[in-house]
């Protein structure tokens, strides 16, 4: 029987009960031990000290190893002892063997915890913490970790604070601040109090790093939409960044960009525009590729129409391309200069910027918001002996889409209305048979009844009508589809325009698979395995708005929420799934 359960009244300052010698004394002051609570805290004192001492408290220093201890530390075993000696015990049974095993476990644990990190000075990379910049700068050349961690800027090798702290804990670097090496405790204090990374985020970061993943900070600009990926745009992005990385030191004049680089590096181009340009424009065009201005046109807002819309555009583009090279595509000069400067300054963790839809105009052949008047291209864009001219592509619009459009209900109504006014009533032969108004009205009435299921007038003639007519659905699934009130939505639907809330949940890290380490390139990491959002259990579950915004921000990479509870990490994610509709399944 476990003798440890004692019922005591839970009052502060109660009398100390006589302790059983085998157990931990629960009431302080306890007997023995140099680490007593305070001076004079012996059995005579009944109450714990009510007020804190006004004077400052001296925090005792950590252990400093002497030279023999250092040498001894190098020759200690590198293997971790196993966790439990023997099978796990179910209940304490007071046996000596159990006690012995426990004691052994404990001894090993204290010994392990008390070990200090000892490294050869030659194998440590010196690094300096720069609080004003929020980075750690490497003072000696980086080691193997440079393959997956850190970034370059202006010729310096830099680490993020969480990376530096992790490497310090691993014993790979020595971190200095004002020429004094930092202990791990000081490093935790200095590096984790900034607004860039906090304690929870560091715990998740180090947990994942210890498992072997490659963890980088989240870069919103690197999120490619599925469409961009389809066009292999990330291949171009790599080429771009490698190129500009090499040309880091050159002046940032955009005129120096040669034709070898895709023109998209220069301006905030509509990402769809960019894709089409790349696929359609010959690369040897635009030798100096300075931008010219684009006329603004409305960009299509509806994403579902996107793919069909763009495919429609491809046709006129090829046609236009035959008319004139560069086909009047010009880019805005606005924001171009600063773009190229940014692109040239190497990859400072943030690659190309997001497309700015508002500033990009694009020829638009679709049925809504047409933009078909295309200006003549600037003559300096064209090769010699090629004249550009203005064109109005309106005539092509009719020849575009050979397939019958599926119009939305509103469009159908609009077209029906338009047809009403366009069509001639007298062209109808049945109307021509009517000789007077009365017959005409009867014809109309007949038609109306036919249309509205005259056989079931008792159903359809009332204010409350059936939801479906028999011809509308042919299977239970179709019936359910027609009468459903809730439509299937996906998490990223409608998320494009959501604004960020200050202080809300944000994506912290991109996580790449551990087995891709050999092929991992920092400048073009590719698509991450997952993205992490970090929170604690005390914080509320993210609301739908945040979830949508974050899922949209993450693109097609799954989003994982890492929840910290006092050292324990749990990983959660939200899944989109569709409920089956057909009853038969």
């Amino acid at each position, binding site marked *: 029987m476990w003798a440890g359960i004692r019922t005591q009244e*839970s009052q502060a300052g109660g009398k100390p009960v006589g302790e059983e010698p085998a157990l931990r004394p*629960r009431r302080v002051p306890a007997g023995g031990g140099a680490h007593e*609570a305070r001076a004079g805290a012996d059995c005579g004192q009944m109450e714990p000290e009510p007020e804190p001492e006004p004077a400052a408290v001296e*925090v005792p220093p950590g252990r400093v190893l002497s030279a023999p201890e*250092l040498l001894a530390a190098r020759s200690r075993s590198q293997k971790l002892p196993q966790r439990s000696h023997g099978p796990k015990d179910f209940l304490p049974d007071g046996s000596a063997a159990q006690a012995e095993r426990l004691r052994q476990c404990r001894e090993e644990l204290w010994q392990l915890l008390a070990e200090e990190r000892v490294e050869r000075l030659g194998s440590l990379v010196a690094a300096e913490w720069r609080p004003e910049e929020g980075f750690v700068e490497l003072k000696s050349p980086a080691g193997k970790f440079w393959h997956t961690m850190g970034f370059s800027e202006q010729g310096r090798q830099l680490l993020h604070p969480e990376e530096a702290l992790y490497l310090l804990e691993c014993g790979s670097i020595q971190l200095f601040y004002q020429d004094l090496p930092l202990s*791990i*405790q000081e490093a935790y204090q200095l590096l984790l109090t900034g607004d860039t990374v906090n304690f929870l985020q560091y715990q998740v970061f180090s947990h994942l790093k210890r498992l072997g993943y490659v963890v980088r900070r989240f870069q919103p600009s690197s999120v490619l939409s599925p469409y961009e990926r389809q066009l292999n745009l990330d291949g171009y992005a790599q080429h771009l960044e490698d190129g500009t990385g090499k040309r880091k030191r050159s002046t940032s004049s955009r005129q120096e960009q040669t034709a070898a680089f895709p023109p998209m590096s220069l301006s905030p181009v509509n990402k769809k525009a960019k894709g089409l340009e790349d696929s359609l424009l010959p690369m040897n065009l635009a030798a100096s590729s300075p931008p010219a201005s684009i006329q603004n046109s409305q960009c299509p807002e509806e994403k579902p129409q996107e793919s069909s819309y763009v495919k429609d555009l491809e046709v006129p583009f090829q046609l236009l391309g035959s008319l004139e090279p560069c086909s009047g595509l010009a880019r805005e000069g606005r924001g171009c200069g600063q773009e190229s400067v940014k692109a040239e300054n190497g990859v400072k963790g943030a690659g190309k910027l997001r497309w700015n839809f508002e500033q990009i105009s694009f020829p638009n052949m679709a049925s809504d918001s047409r933009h078909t008047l295309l200006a003549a291209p600037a003559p300096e864009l064209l090769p010699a002996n090629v004249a550009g001219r203005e064109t109005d592509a309106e005539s092509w619009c009719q020849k575009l889409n050979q397939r019958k459009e599926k119009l939305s209900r509103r469009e159908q109504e609009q077209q029906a209305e338009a047809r009403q006014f366009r069509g001639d009533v007298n062209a109808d032969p049945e109307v021509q048979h009517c000789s007077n108004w009365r017959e005409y009205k009867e014809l109309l009435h007949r038609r109306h009844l036919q249309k509205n299921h005259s056989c079931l007038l008792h159903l359809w003639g009332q204010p409350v009508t059936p939801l479906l007519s028999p011809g509308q659905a042919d299977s239970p699934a179709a019936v359910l589809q027609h009468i459903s009130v809730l439509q299937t939505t996906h998490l990223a639907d409608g998320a494009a325009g959501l604004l960020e809330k200050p202080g809300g949940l944000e994506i912290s890290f991109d996580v790449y698979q551990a087995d891709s380490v050999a092929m991992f390139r920092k400048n073009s990491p590719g698509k991450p395995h997952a993205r992490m959002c970090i929170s604690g259990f005390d914080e509320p579950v993210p609301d739908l708005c945040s979830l949508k915004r974050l899922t949209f921000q993450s693109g097609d990479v799954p989003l994982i929420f890492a929840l910290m509870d006092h050292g324990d990490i749990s990983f959660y994610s939200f899944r989109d799934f569709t409920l089956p509709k057909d009853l038969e399944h």
Partner: protein
Amino acid sequence: MLVVEVANGRSLVWGAEAVQALRERLGVGGRAVGALPRGPRQNSRLGLPLLLLPEEARLLAEIGAVTLVSAPRPDPSLHGQALASFRRQQEQSFQEQSALAAEARESRRQELLEKIAEGQAAKKQKLEQDSGAGGSESEAQAESGADAGAWVHLPSSPRAASDAGALLPRSALLVQLATARPRPVKARPLDWRVQSKDWPHAGRPAHELRYSIYRDLWERGFFLSAAGKFGGDFLVYPGERGWDVRKTLLLCSPQPDGKVVYTSLQWASLQ
């Protein structure tokens, strides 16, 4: 005296002896959240610092076992002094390590000497046996002579080196990457009854509730740890680690009179 530094509501213990004292004498577990020096790239065993639950920190402060302090900022005025003492300590360690390394080399050489002597003797014996076979005797002799010469040379070169008082190359110097701050500092004590930036828990109803339960169970002799990943508040063990108990769900509610009522739930099969 046990001192625990608190920053942003988080209490971290950086000394191994302190962790031992907390666990063995006071029955407060905490959770190790740092990398273990011996194996920093694995997650099954973690090392210092030890993270304490706010309830644990408060309990320890209430019973007077520990003094909570706000994590001290580095004092710029003391920086020069610290830097000077660090450099002095580094130099001293360097000298000592060189001396120790020289001693180690010397003792190794002594061992080697014996082995060399043994080896030479054995070889001489072998040669004498082989000399009866004839043939390549002269070569063998020359070889053995050369070998002996080589063997003889070997002891002398390290002796020369150590006699020259060669220091360890700087890159071979061993340094300690300290876990806890290696020098004492002064810190302001923290009052856990008052809400502050470093201790935001005071007065929060959730914290008070959890604390009352924690305290009651601790006084009954149980060992508690965090249970967020199981969906609960605490995991309660009858003793320190090593026990694997059948788990039941316990609902606790403190009564206004200070007592706590526990209700245990168990799965019942419907057969």
